[in-house]
């Protein structure tokens, strides 16, 4: 082919690059290895992630749920995972119909009117929701509960820093674990939105309906964030409670925790805000013969057309993960989603009760919870959990000191349908044993 193009060497292909800019030495990246060697090397690396082999009670934004075998099998069809964004509908209907079903399922679970084709994850979805609230209300003040996932708050801080948005934290009630009533008094007619997470970072279920009334009373939007999407099938939907924008992390829907990504951000809102929504939307369309199909639509909101005036800069989203979540939701279905949620709640309740009975342990918050709760230990939580891991081979939860330096003894426990009673009892016994043997 080179000769065919009148070239004598591959080097000549790059003649348009000034000589002094050519990189003439070999890259100092590793030399090529075979499949056998790569597998061995990666298996070895993975084996040093010892935590991946332990029973775990870690949640806090990434949840270990069971994913039916068909989920991974189906997303592994190359027609799905090696396709691009469905810009050519005639040969992309598989992807498009799946997204349309995803949008519908997200609406059903959140209780909202319209959902997009996905955001990067829950944290960036929340940031985009805050920016959207500013667009919609033209107000610059956003009030958030401090009981939102700390990393989500950090991400919002980053996104809004050059947007002139005053992102204002309201503390939570040390007794209930819910957003504090006083804090809400800072709501005023300058407020674009009130942001809450429910169940919140401490696992406490906020009274979303009451909060939406407070927000709407001053003309602010209520943005509800959910990190544990399985809770949708047990708890009153944010939509039913009056939320204006609902964002969630969809990883719970059959997606592996995979050290934090790829996950999938869910973003839903009211019909009237449809044209303010960030990201892609798929809609129904018909051909000349009246056959139904689906297309990417309302593209004028998007960067490739609207450029700097777009509702967001997002382009590539989390398509395949949204597909996995769709397959999960459809496989579990109406009853399965309910049963998973019920089992999570039941097992968490059992675990909480058992831990509460332990000498020196307490559960600081009184609010109802779904499948996560804070435990206050008689000893330093970080140390306690480290020993639980090394001595009992259990990951017992998250030491809150990771985010709250002033809370050395608190840790967050998450229980899902994958935690067997045996694991739970081992956790409880382990906590008892270690806390007393210090």
């Amino acid at each position: 082919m080179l000769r065919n193009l009148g070239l004598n060497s591959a080097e000549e292909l790059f003649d348009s690059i000034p000589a002094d800019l050519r990189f003439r030495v070999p890259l100092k990246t590793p030399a090529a290895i075979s499949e056998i060697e790569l597998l061995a090397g990666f298996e070895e690396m993975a084996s040093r992630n010892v935590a991946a082999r332990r029973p775990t009670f870690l949640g806090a934004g990434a949840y270990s749920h069971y994913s039916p075998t068909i989920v991974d099998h189906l997303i592994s069809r190359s027609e799905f995972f090696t396709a691009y964004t469905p810009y050519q509908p005639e040969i992309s209907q598989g992807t498009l119909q799946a997204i349309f079903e995803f949008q519908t399922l997200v609406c059903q679970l959140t209780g909202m009117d319209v959902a997009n084709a996905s955001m990067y994850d829950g944290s960036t979805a929340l940031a985009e929701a805050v920016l959207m609230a500013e667009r919609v209300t033209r107000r610059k003040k956003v009030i958030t509960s401090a009981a939102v996932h700390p990393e989500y708050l950090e991400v919002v801080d980053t996104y809004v820093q050059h947007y002139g948005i005053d992102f204002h934290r309201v503390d939570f009630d040390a007794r209930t674990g819910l957003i504090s009533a006083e804090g809400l008094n800072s709501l005023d007619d300058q407020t674009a939105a009130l942001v809450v997470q429910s169940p919140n970072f401490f696992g406490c279920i906020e009274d979303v309906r009451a909060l939406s009334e407070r927000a709407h009373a001053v003309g602010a939007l209520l943005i509800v964030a959910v990190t544990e999407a399985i809770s949708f099938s047990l708890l009153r939907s944010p939509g039913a409670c009056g939320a204006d924008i609902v964002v969630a992390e969809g990883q719970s829907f059959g997606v592996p925790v995979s050290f934090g990504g790829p996950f999938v951000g869910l973003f839903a809102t009211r019909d009237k805000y449809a044209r303010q929504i960030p990201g892609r939307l798929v809609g129904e369309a018909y051909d000349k013969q009246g056959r139904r199909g689906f297309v990417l639509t309302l593209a004028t909101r998007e960067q490739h057309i609207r450029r700097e005036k777009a509702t967001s800069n997002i382009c590539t989203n989390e398509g395949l993960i949204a597909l996995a979540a769709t397959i999960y939701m459809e496989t579990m279905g109406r009853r399965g989603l309910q049963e998973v949620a019920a089992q999570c709640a039941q097992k968490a309740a059992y675990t909480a009760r058992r831990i509460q009975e332990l000498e020196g342990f307490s559960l600081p918050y009184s609010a109802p919870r779904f499948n996560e709760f804070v435990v206050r230990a008689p000893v330093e939580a970080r140390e306690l959990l480290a020993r639980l891991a090394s001595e009992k081979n259990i990951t017992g939860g998250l030491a809150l000191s990771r985010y709250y330096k002033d809370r050395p003894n608190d840790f967050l426990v998450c229980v899902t349908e994958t935690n067997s009673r045996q694991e739970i009892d081992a956790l409880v016994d382990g906590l008892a044993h270690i806390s007393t043997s210090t």
Partner: protein
Amino acid sequence: MNSTKITKAAPHITQNEALIFERSQTGRKGYRLPPLDVDETPLDEIVPVNLRRDDDLEGVPEVSEVDVVRHFTRISTWNYSIDLGMYPLGSCTMKYNSRLNEKVARIPGFANLHPLTPEEDAQGALQLIYELQESLSEITGLAGVSLQPAAGAHGEMTGVMIIRAFIDARDGAGASDKRRVMLIPDSAHGTNPASAHLSGFTVKTIRSTAEGFTDLDHLRELCAHGDVAGLMLTNPNTLGLFEKQIKEICGIVHDAGGLVYMDGANMNALVGVARPGDMGVDVIHLNLHKTFSTPHGGGGPGCGPCCCTRELEPFLPVPRVVKDEDRFRLDFDRPQSIGRVKAFFGNFGMMVRALAYIQTHGNDGLREATEAAVLNARYVARGLAPDYDKPFDAPPMHEVVFTDKRQSRKGVHTLDIAKRLIDYGFHPMTIYFPLIVQGAMLIEPTESVGRQELDQFIAAMRSIAREALEEPETVLNAPHTTRIGRLDEAAAARRPTLRWRPKEAASAA
């Protein structure tokens, strides 16, 4: 319609399939869970009824496992995909996605690792991130790397925010409020201005020259007012041309007190051949889901690492993954950091695949891939020149742009050519981008296609050119071989239906 001149593809029966909601049947189940093994608590004691859902998940489908399998297997057959053939979307780098990379990403030690695992129990994952950072640093010639951004646009936002933070650090807090201008060529991808805007910058557009390069005079002019924070440049640019004067360009921007951001979406033309760091670029994003072959997945997930000079490194997002002796850890103590752009550490699963790509190709393999990608684009450029208008003379790098100028005389436009290409068994090229080229057709074959198929593609395009002259109707009404024809997108946008609703409800609405 599927005329015999078409040899690459043929219509074959496929299954139709309704929406899953239309298939739902009360009582069907596709799952089974182990029985609850703890003593049950009355639900009211766990969550009071007023906080519980009361719609019994009405509308959520009830289907069996085989229903779901058939549903997605059927609709999947309506998709084109890399595994079915050449996917010449310009700017998208649709290259082969190795199955091996899919396999290693699913190793339980990676897939089941929780992001909040204490460092000492996640050394393998941190090592993987670190090694990928090192490789990308070497490939770009830039010292600082963060893998946190989830996609290209996310990497852009990160990079632009870094520029802003740097300026404030350099010129004093708030300085960037005065240096508000981000320069962006008119040929740039839409994410560039959008990302600049998201970071609070005012976008000013630089003209491209008739030859398809950045107009340096215009650039100088725009740099004359002391308000330029930076330039966002794609190189090779979106016309597939290498910006020969990249060094001068960087010089001009630097002299004006600005920084240079490079959009690395086109790095598939440069890996192993030239390094942005050597060109004077300050910060860049990569698309692992393009250049480093992580699967596009029908629209994602991606991974958009941000790479920058040592000078800018302190501003990268937290946490950083660093190495002390032979131990890897997270460094949160970065006072100058722009902050966090995503929860946890980014799309780790994509990082696993990208490192596997780098290791299985090896350093020479990476360069060979670049050579093949450029060679293939050149081959296509040459093959189509006789029949299509090629607006720029400069030899293309990994992608080449043509236009519908000649065909449009007959009323056949880029969209029609793209649709007709479907009948010939190919996914169309990128169309109407970049915006500055009227009727643009941006073609990027990538290295993942052999000469046979390149020849078939060229033959198909030339045949379409002939059809445009001799039987334009055939092209105007294409595609003829798909389950459904062209969809009325205008109508769809006018009264959008963005979700399924139960019949009654729907008609009620």
